């Protein structure tokens, strides 16, 4: 039994003087999919940005694979194997698909490895191969999301954080994206945090669930009880 691959202890973060999340203890075990649920404004995104280093935490600590990474710049976290897919299509809209994927592997200087990775990602999302020369900004929402996930996989992450991958997608695409997350875990041996508001599609792929409300944790544990409609309405 090894320790968690990612852990926060008493993490608080926010903007200006105000805390958006307060005293969060999050644990992500090796090979686990953690689903973080919550409303708009519950602090989900703030929490993820603070973990990843895009936002300096106000207090508390972040550990990755046993060592503290609190407040480090994202460049170092990415280099050590944490990948983040931001909300609203984390791509470079005016570059081509191919350029986007290559930039996804920016921290890796090894071109041969990059080529191999790109092939692997094309294998998962064949549409990206077909459209390799297209400007990414002209993609549909679902294609953008696939590209964003593909980019995050380019440097072979051990922890993958996805911030609302379903936002703005048609329901059938949401299912497709969630499936691909399950596939990624199998192929890349990664641990995953999925931040979502969309419960129906994300719940099935979760090993464990954490529900945030107004910056604090109001439920943590097994996803099964949340399948109950009544329980959901109560929490939301």
């Amino acid at each position, binding site marked *: 039994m090894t320790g968690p691959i990612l852990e926060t202890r008493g993490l608080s973060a926010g903007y200006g003087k105000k805390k958006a999340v307060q005293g969060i203890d999050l644990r992500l075990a090796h090979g686990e999919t953690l689903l973080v649920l919550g409303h708009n*404004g519950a602090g989900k995104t703030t929490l993820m940005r603070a973990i990843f280093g895009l936002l300096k935490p106000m207090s508390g600590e972040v550990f990755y694979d046993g060592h503290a990474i609190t407040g480090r710049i994202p460049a170092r976290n990415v280099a050590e194997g944490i990948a983040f897919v931001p909300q609203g299509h984390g791509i470079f809209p005016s570059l081509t698909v191919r350029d986007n994927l290559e930039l996804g592997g920016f921290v890796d200087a090894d071109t041969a490895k990059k080529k191999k990775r790109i092939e692997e990602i094309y294998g998962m999302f064949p549409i990206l191969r077909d459209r390799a020369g297209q400007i990414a900004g002209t993609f549909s929402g679902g294609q953008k999301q696939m590209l964003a996930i593909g980019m995050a996989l380019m440097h072979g992450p051990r922890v993958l954080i996805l911030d609302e991958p379903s936002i703005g997608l048609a*329901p059938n695409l949401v299912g497709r994206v969630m499936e691909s997350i399950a596939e990624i875990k199998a192929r890349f041996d990664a641990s995953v945090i999925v931040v979502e508001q969309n419960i129906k599609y994300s719940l099935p792929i979760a090993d464990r669930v954490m529900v945030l409300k*107004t910056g604090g944790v109001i439920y943590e544990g097994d996803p099964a009880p949340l399948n109950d409609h009544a329980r959901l*309405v109560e929490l*939301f």
Partner: protein
Amino acid sequence: MDFLYHIGVLFCLYAILATSFNLLIGFAGLFALSHAALYAIGAYTTAILTTKLGLAFPLPLLGSVLFAMLLSTIIALPALRVNGHYLVIVSLALQIIVLQVILNWKSLTGGTDGIGGIPPYHFGNLVIDTPFRFMMVAFIALVLCYCIARVLIRSPFGRALRAMRDNESAAQAVGLDILFMKVAVFAISAGLAAVAGSLFAQYFSYVSAESFSINETIYILAMVILGGVGNLRGSVLGAAILIILPELLKFLPLPVDIADKIRLVLYGCVLMAVLVFAPQGLLPEPRGRKAMWVSPDGGDDRTDDEALLSSEGGKRDEIVLEGRNLGKRFGGVVAVSDFSISLKKGRITGLLGPNGAGKTTAFNLLTGFLKPTSGQILLHGKDIARKKPHELVDAGVARSFQDLRLFTNMTVLENVMVALPGQKVRSIWRLFLTPMAVRRREQEAMRKAMHILRFVELHDRAYETAADLSYAEEKLLVVARLLATGAEVLLFDEPMSGLDQTTLHDIFPVIRKLAEHGKAVCIIEHNLDVIKELCDEVFFLDEGRTMAVGKPDELMNNPELAERYFK
């Protein structure tokens, strides 16, 4: 001794310039860096009026002020449409163009030779021809200009300016006419700069374009930043320091041109150092109670909520605001299509739907922040689709923002006061002509604002700066500010998101009371509890169109909608 008086004159001139510049950049947040050009216009107008037309005080001064105001208004109308970086660059370009005109219009301005032989002031037999006498004149001018600036910033107009600086779209949303305010403050600032210019011409009896270069603007900018942006006293202090400091250089044995350059290096360093190490400047902008002009007169004369929420007639359930088949596209993307809604007097209507369904776009259409590509918006049956946001507030439709957009550098009380009707101050002259009436109205506004704050139970935080409020308090302030507009249709964009259960139950009655008193209320909400608790009717939106209309319970038990909502 004359040397000291000379410095005194310079101080007065630059204190006027810095004060007027601060009005523009500090209070209105408009970084239009063409101040030296306006200064030049003031100086040249006086020079031309005195030498070519032989006019005597006060005509040249008045001419300078009026001409600068007129010209700045003409310039401002296009230039102030752009913001931020672009405004800085456009105004720097203006500065250059004005100087080019001065240099090239030789018949009028003398080109590079400038204009000499400007006569000194004559007041009866008294000729203002010594530095001491001129210092007295300049000092009187400074006091007058300072008072004008002070009255302005402490008036409702000044408050509106600060609101605009803090958040332009929110200022529009409470009914302020942004364009008018920008042009007005630019013209006033130009007029005051022209006073300094006119004095300059009469003091030196010679003007040339060299005195009004871009460096001059940066020099004045350094004074404002050093003294403190948004603090008038700071500008006077900044001018004093940056006038006197370089004079000390004169005691060093340096060639004149080197000394002059060192002086400019010094200004640049001061400017950078202040921005990096002490961005507030020497005297920070007053906050809280200190920033208020009138103080509450203590009396807790509680008027009842009926008076506060008075609504002029009409029956409950009467349709007040209606959107018919509204459509909006951005480029090729359809954000809203075929969206219809009707808001009824005395009813709370919910707007429900998954993320990206187009709810906020719908709000933007109904409140004039976006123009619909198709469809109609009717207020009491009249088409209002072409109106600007601030006109709609006057007409009775006001909205809040999901991201709150409070005026964070103003007090809670000011946030409410600025939203009250009648804060537009279209006739700025009145501030000076009937100060007592203005003061009285200000007291009244304050009482009303306090009353509104009491209504949302935020009155004991009235003098806090809005930035220091807790999240829940901010949300209450949003409600209070919206209420203050006096609009009959109130649209709330997620007023409850991120609030915990207890706070929610504090806000519920407030919103219910609004409806009970005859307001037509519309809320966007994700929280199903809130919808169930509050709404009489719910419009379910997805993919930019109205999917269903009904009672909250009906909608929530509809499996298809639940499917869409939870996806």
